[in-house]
């Protein structure tokens, strides 16, 4: 026992990932399912989740100014990096501003009657009972669990002090709400573990942590009151109770929010923030086009996967999409100029089939002034096939890949020949450039062209042994590539649990891949399988869970006042 703890702590000092395979695997080898080897973690909310929670709790009219701290991409996902980042001083400064603004809006005259469930006896004074009602309810939604008696009392006290100073009950509520909105319990989704009674020595997420993991995975939102109620009753620990909630959530229209959030992460759409094209070369492209290009693909994905419940692989071949008038000008297709977003189907034979031919892909993976077969090939490999392309070596002379203005080389294919002829470059570039060249009919802004500098563009090539003629054909090859669906399964599981898939889980992920194929590559079904699996909620024994802490905990609980003065009156 002592040895094990020693090992675990030593491993932790090296890094979280290292903990896993050495110390814990040996311990739990006998138990089934496979042991998860990471302890519970604090996951920082991202901007989308923050906005979603505020909209869910207080309504969509609440405005949220401010900027969120940049995420950290790890193992291909920001969702994994969310378990590694913290809140910097600048970041807290932004949260502070947002929280003050939200608190002010919630407690203003028109909003308060809708959002505050009681009225104080005297609006110029503190009112602990009404504060308790509001703060208890809001607190539960923001912290994703009920507040402890002590926590609630502290929040009521804050409201009371502020109300007394300001001579305003609502100002008091606002101050207290502000502190909750900048609290670690809100900004971080802190997971907690409990011993698993069914598997001796194994640990699983506790009820509320399960609810949160489930909800952020399926809806990209905090648990709703119904899910919280199920967690409170312990239903999520029982197969039928869990299934009831998962089925409800998968059937809900809110699943679309979860699917969008997943693909936003997987496809690296955080890069849209800085996407700009040269205004002289691509006058039609601006930040609004970029935003709509992102939305186009997300709409297509949501409709295809959730509404139509269609085969994931067909995303790479479908001619169906949605187009806005602004995008239509780049796609050069006719749409109703006043019609907003419209369903659109590219005619048969059009090269624009599948999401690889969308502006979102071709423009995002290009340079500001010209296309980049290398960047596009790399993105396809890394984002959609989960293959890692090595970084370029140091001390390489790139002059061979002459500049675009050089009249000798008219097309990208000619310029990139050097990649293939230089041994040092060829190893990696041959796995990127040829597939990227298939998309050369689309310029850096996503516009269609058949020639570059007067020379006609050759889009033929092959991907892992499968030949293609052009972009549409590349889509077909990708949709038949076995790595496409298996990559999705691995990434999606990793996204849900917030860490890379561990060695001990490979078999289980392979099973998920099999069922994904057997059931027609339907993503909502895949999400349901993941959410229902035991492994999804499994965690390593938390390092905080040491005997000394247990004693401290029970001591704290024992010495805590059984009831606050407010509650006593109740």
């Amino acid at each position, binding site marked *: 026992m002592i040895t094990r703890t020693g090992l675990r702590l030593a491993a*932790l000092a090296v890094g979280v990932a290292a903990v896993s395979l050495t110390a814990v695997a040996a311990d739990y080898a006998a138990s089934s399912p496979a042991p998860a080897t990471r*302890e*519970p*973690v*604090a996951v920082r909310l991202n901007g989308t989740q923050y906005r979603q929670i505020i909209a869910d*709790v*207080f*309504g969509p009219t609440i405005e949220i100014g401010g*900027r969120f701290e940049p995420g950290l991409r790890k193992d291909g996902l920001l969702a994994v*990096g969310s378990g*590694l980042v*913290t*809140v*910097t*001083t600048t*970041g*807290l400064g932004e949260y*502070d501003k947002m929280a003050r603004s939200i608190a002010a809006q919630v407690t203003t005259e028109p909003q308060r009657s*809708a959002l505050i*469930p*009681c*009225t104080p006896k005297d609006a110029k004074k503190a009112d*602990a*009972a009404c504060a308790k*009602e509001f703060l208890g309810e809001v607190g539960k*939604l923001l912290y994703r669990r009920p507040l402890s008696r002590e926590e609630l009392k502290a*929040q009521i006290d*804050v409201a*009371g*002090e502020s*109300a*007394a*100073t*300001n001579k305003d009950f609502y100002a008091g509520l606002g*101050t207290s709400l502000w*502190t909750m909105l*900048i609290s*670690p319990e809100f*900004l971080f989704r*802190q997971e907690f573990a409990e011993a698993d009674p069914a598997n001796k020595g194994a640990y699983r997420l506790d009820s509320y942590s399960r609810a949160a993991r489930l909800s952020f995975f399926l809806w990209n939102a905090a648990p709703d009151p119904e899910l919280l109620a199920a967690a409170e009753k312990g239903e999520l620990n029982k197969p039928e109770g869990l299934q009831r909630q998962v089925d409800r959530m998968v059937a809900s229209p809110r699943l679309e929010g979860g699917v969008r959030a997943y693909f936003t992460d997987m496809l690296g759409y955080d890069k849209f923030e800085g996407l700009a094209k*040269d205004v002289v*070369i691509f006058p039609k492209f601006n930040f609004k086009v970029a935003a709509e290009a992102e939305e186009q693909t997300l709409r297509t994905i949501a409709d295809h996967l959730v509404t139509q419940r269609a085969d994931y692989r067909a995303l790479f071949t479908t001619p169906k999409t949605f187009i806005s008038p602004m995008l239509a000008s780049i796609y050069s297709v006719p749409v109703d100029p006043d019609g907003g977003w419209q369903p659109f189907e590219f005619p048969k034979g059009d090269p624009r089939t599948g999401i690889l031919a969308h502006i979102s892909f071709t423009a995002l993976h290009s*340079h*500001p*002034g*010209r296309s980049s077969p290398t960047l596009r090939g790399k993105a396809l490999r890394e984002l959609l096939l989960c293959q890692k392309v090595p970084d*370029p070596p*140091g*001390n*390489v*002379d790139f*002059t061979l*890949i002459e500049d*675009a203005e*050089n009249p000798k080389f008219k097309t990208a294919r000619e310029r990139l020949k050097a990649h293939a002829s230089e041994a040092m470059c060829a190893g990696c570039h041959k796995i990127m450039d040829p597939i990227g060249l298939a998309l050369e009919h689309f310029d850096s802004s996503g516009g269609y062209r058949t020639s570059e500098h007067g020379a006609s563009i050759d889009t033929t090539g092959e991907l892992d042994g499968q030949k293609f003629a052009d972009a549409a054909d590349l889509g077909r090859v990708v949709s038949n590539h076995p790595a496409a669906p298996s990559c999705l399964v691995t990434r999606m599981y990793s996204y849900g649990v917030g860490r890379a898939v561990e060695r001990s889980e490979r078999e289980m992920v392979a099973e998920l891949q099999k069922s994904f194929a057997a059931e027609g590559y339907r993503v909502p079904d895949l999400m349901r399988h993941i959410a229902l699996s035991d492994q999804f909620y499994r965690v390593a024994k938390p390092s*905080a869970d040491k005997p000394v*802490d247990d004693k401290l905990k029970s001591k704290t609980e024992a010495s805590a006042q059984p009831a606050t003065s*407010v509650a006593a*009156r*109740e």
Partner: protein
Amino acid sequence: MIYMRPMHRRSVLRGMMGGAAISVGLPILDCFLNTNGTAFAATGQALPVRFGTWFWGCGLNPGRWEPDKVGADYDIKPEMAPVAGFKNKLNVYSGLKTFLDGKAVGVHFSGVMACTTGTVPNGMMPSKASIDSLVADVIGTRSRFRSIEVACAGIPSHSQSRRSATAMNPAEVSPAKLYTRIFGPEFTDPNAAVFKPDPAVMVRKSALSVVSEKRQDLMKKIGAADRQRLDEYFTSVRELEQQLALQLEKPAPIESCSVPGAVADSAVGNEIAMVRENNRLFSTLLAHAVACDQTRVVNVAFADATSSLRHKGGTQSHHEHTHEEPIDVKLGYQPELAVFNTEIMEGFNEFLTAMDGIKEGDSTLLDRSIIFASTDHGYAKLHGLENMPLFTAGSGGGRMKTGIHVAAKGQPVTRVGLTAQQAMGVPVSSWGTESNETSRTITEVMA
């Protein structure tokens, strides 16, 4: 879907938190450090020292920036021409290199890490706090902002300032927002005739303890890896508390402090003209923020490593030029690239000009600062990590000699960082790891 909806009104309970009063303990702020500098004329208090970083990507053209002459009164090479006016306040360090110790080169990354954190990590994730954070720990704890980061090309994550491996200090990208953050409603003018503490700030400061007091309990419940992260969060909370405390304290008058006019946002993007305009706006704001003692540490990211700067109408970025532009046989260098490099150094000149433009007694803000300027590569064309250009400007109130060219071929880049840290009073005797570790300061510039 709104979860909070009007509910049946329960019977309102009697009893209130009667008589709750707020008592705010105002700390006696020892705003000023034990420097050797001169003092505020008005109060006799010592003037603080300041630190800044200025980052650009893709280095400079080898042979076109390093002076021939070593030591004082060095000669100015073409790409240094824009900062020639600061020759007497600027140190040039040539020949320094980043050691990889057998690790794969992280292109446009390893060199940044060596210069700013002293360590080349394995892989593409930073592993240490950056130099400005280490300096801010010493000189930045008593000002309203511990440090201020800006990025001139519109992307907050261009910031090279890191409090720890995973905590990047995100940069402000909007001059208008930065203006509001510094000189908006929460700014207390040190020279205002009347000082009246804002009761709302008092309330917030008192209420904030409900957050900071969670620390102890939470730390007991969470895993080892999370403890450090949450500790960083609570450090941020403490700094917010400190900011609020400062807002309640009457500041000492500062002769050199003046509030600049409000700033409107200018176009944002990676076109170098836009970047330079934002650099200029930010530089003015930062200089005023420093003069008014709102912060003592500023960090400017002129561009990203892998410099994505470009010219309007150009198909290639600065970065692409470094690799793909042929060397002009007659000139012996990449001419288009030289244009970019010159414009970048003009940006540096604008930053130095803003800092030097504010007088503090008989010297300037720049004189009382040390500005540390670094990049990602020596010869970006080859992703070279040798002969990396590094500069320091200002003497930090006489703590460093200036106007010197130091040639230190084959020495680790960390020597400059160590020297700057020691000059700023950081108690550090050696800095960096593996072959980039050094305990040798650059004695030629130590005062």
